[in-house]
């Protein structure tokens, strides 16, 4: 499906970032970098999103939040770890409360390094994510829609 390439919607979550990467993510949507020219929109809502951008390392308090938001994004979805902290835990890695990178909690598809990650590399990461997205979608279509359902939630 070609349209995926052209309409990736993001949700941005700040796990425990110092806000450096967050500023850069927002900068992408501003006139200078204008990601909307590629159809990229920052939705702020997992139900509408395709790409999950996480900044900062995951800590004890927000690991469930990250998981829950991840679950609320419909398949196919791609996770982007933005910035060194999100990739590995960065300089906070040894902190008592930090679990490490985002990949400790949810599967990450694209790592965008940098402290802070530059807008160009973020956009580059998103573009990388799109091809992965395409693959995932094809796989999803092949295997039948959706993933196995969470039995705890399966009641209607």
């Amino acid at each position, binding site marked *: 499906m070609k349209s995926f390439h052209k309409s990736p919607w993001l949700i941005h979550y700040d796990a425990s970032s110092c806000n450096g990467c967050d500023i850069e993510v927002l900068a992408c949507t501003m006139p200078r970098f204008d990601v909307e020219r590629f159809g990229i929109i920052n939705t702020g*809502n997992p139900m509408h999103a395709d790409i999950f951008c996480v900044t900062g390392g995951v800590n004890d308090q*927000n690991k*469930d*939040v*990250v998981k*829950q938001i991840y*679950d*609320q994004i419909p398949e196919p979805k791609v996770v982007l770890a933005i910035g060194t902290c999100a990739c590995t835990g960065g300089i906070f890695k040894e902190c008592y409360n930090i679990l490490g990178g985002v990949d400790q909690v949810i599967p990450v598809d694209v790592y965008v390094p940098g402290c802070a990650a530059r807008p160009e590399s973020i956009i580059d990461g998103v573009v990388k994510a799109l091809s992965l997205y395409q693959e995932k979608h094809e796989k999803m279509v092949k295997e039948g829609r959706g993933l196995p359902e969470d039995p705890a939630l*399966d*009641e209607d």
Partner: protein
Amino acid sequence: MASMVACLICVPLIFAGIIACISNDKVRGYVVYVGGVVIMGLVVATVYKYAVASSMFSKLEPITFELPYNEVFNMATIAGDVILMIVIVYLSFKWRKYWISIFSIVQTGIVLWVEFMGPEVEEKASIRFDNLTMIMILIIGFVGCLIGIYAVGYLRGYHVHHKEYKDRRRFFLSMVFVFYAAMFGLVTTQNVMWLECFWEVTSVCSFLLIGYTRTDEAITNSFRALWMNLVGGLGFAVVILIGAYKFSTFDLFDIISLNVANFKGGQGDYIQLALLQSVCLAMLAFAAISKTAQFPFSKWLLGAMVAPTPSSALLHSATMVKAGVYLLIRISPYLYGTYTGKMVYMVGGFTFFAASFLAISQSDGKKVLAYSTISNLGLMVMCCGVGTESSRWAAIFLMIFHAISKSMCFQAVGAIENTTGSRDIEDMQGLMKRLPKLGLILLIGMSGMYLAPFGMLISKWAALKTVVDSSNALLVIFICFGSASTMFYWTKWMSKILGPQEQSQKDVTEKGEYISMFCHAAMALASVLGMIIISDKIVNKYVISTIVSDSVEGATAMSNSNLRMMLFMVLAVFVVPFITYLMSKGVDSKKVTGYMNGINVGDNKHFVDAFGEEKELHVSNWYLENMFGEKKLFTPSVIIGLVFICAMLCTVIGNLIGGGVI
């Protein structure tokens, strides 16, 4: 025909007597069921007889006749008046509301004086039967009796929940039957004396029903209902006086249509005649406005909410307030273009507008229904005040649909209260899943009240059209803005009952209650689907028959092509969600929790707070207390209503005294 009508008045009274004597709960229940069915049967038989007599409702002239033993009935009404006076005086002294007895004494005094000391009047047939009478009888018979049937089961549940109140079910149910008798009498008679008596019976019955629980609040509210209705009833006393002393007739239609043979005024004094007629019209309108709980009299209907639900359903839908609307429809042709008519439609339009705002701020289900009743009655009163043919068409349809839908809503809310112990809208979250049957009934009732293709909305549309045609900008604004707030308060209630809710609840609603409610649902549907026929065969005929020379336009407010389109939409509203439901049934979906910033505990009802603890979450509707609250809007509304009423009365009376200066 005559014997049928006599039966309609007497049979409910007999049943009332029987019910009052039976102390066994079960037997009484069956007697009520039988009574309800018998009365419905009588109604059907009467309608059948009428259909034959009027060659399928196409006869334009009403059928008038005497009841068998007419003199007995005549004496009975006088005796009834006296008994009512004694009851009122006794009760108002018992509860130390002495001043209320004055209204009753004055009124009954006038009636007795006129009857025994007054001049001889022309004898006229006391019963008059036409299409409108038939519609009223059907409403009272079917909606009313079904409410009676519902009441049996409801009261059983009610006394399980409310042990603190004395069980006076016998009294309650027999009063309900007295109510039917009074209503049947009220809509069939054309004799003002009789009308006055039946009118008083409904006032006193509603007073007794409202005071059922005998709590302080119930007593205050019931006396409020009583005095407001008695004040309105005084209007009748004036009409009787004028009728006896000036027009020499007790015939309502002769009085309002100036068809007076032996006028006792000055020779050829037509100005005085017309002025007296306008006084009569204003007095009748005044009585009707107090009965229909328009501003400034709205408070009594709101207070009536303290009573058990069947009595609210009865007062709001089939009886009581509809008596007021009935009377207004009767006098409506003569209100066209008069000052009284103007004030009536201003009161009605304003009440529609104001009450629909007040409904927004209420979270008590019954109170919302009460405000919605007041508001819809306002619409009917307004249509009557405008007084053109199409506006009467709208008023009649509004009345039909309102009776059915509102009765359904009340019964559903009552049953819900018995089951869940609360009638607050906020507690009705996910009702469709918890109590699917009751939820469905409530849903149909509410859609009937405001949704696009259903009766109320068609009639509202007709009302809008006639108002536009009668060149009244202010009324158009009232309707447009009132419709908006009506939409608001119904939709927010409706959206509440559709929401999710896992725990299911045990439904304690009895079979009798369900029978009543489902019959209502069937009637609601039938009345919408059969609207074209009802309009063509019955209502249009009636409306045409009431054309008075100086009102202008043609008969129908709504062309049949429009009605057909509406019919299509009605089907669409039922069929489309059903089809889409079937369509969406096969769609795979993965169930997820709702978005709460990732801190949803997992059941959409709790979230994790900053300390890692679970907190409950309640998504509430908006009630906008600061903007539309009762505290803010009620008193000004009463004052504005009062201004209209005073203007109406002062003008006609001033005119009479001044001899037609204004």
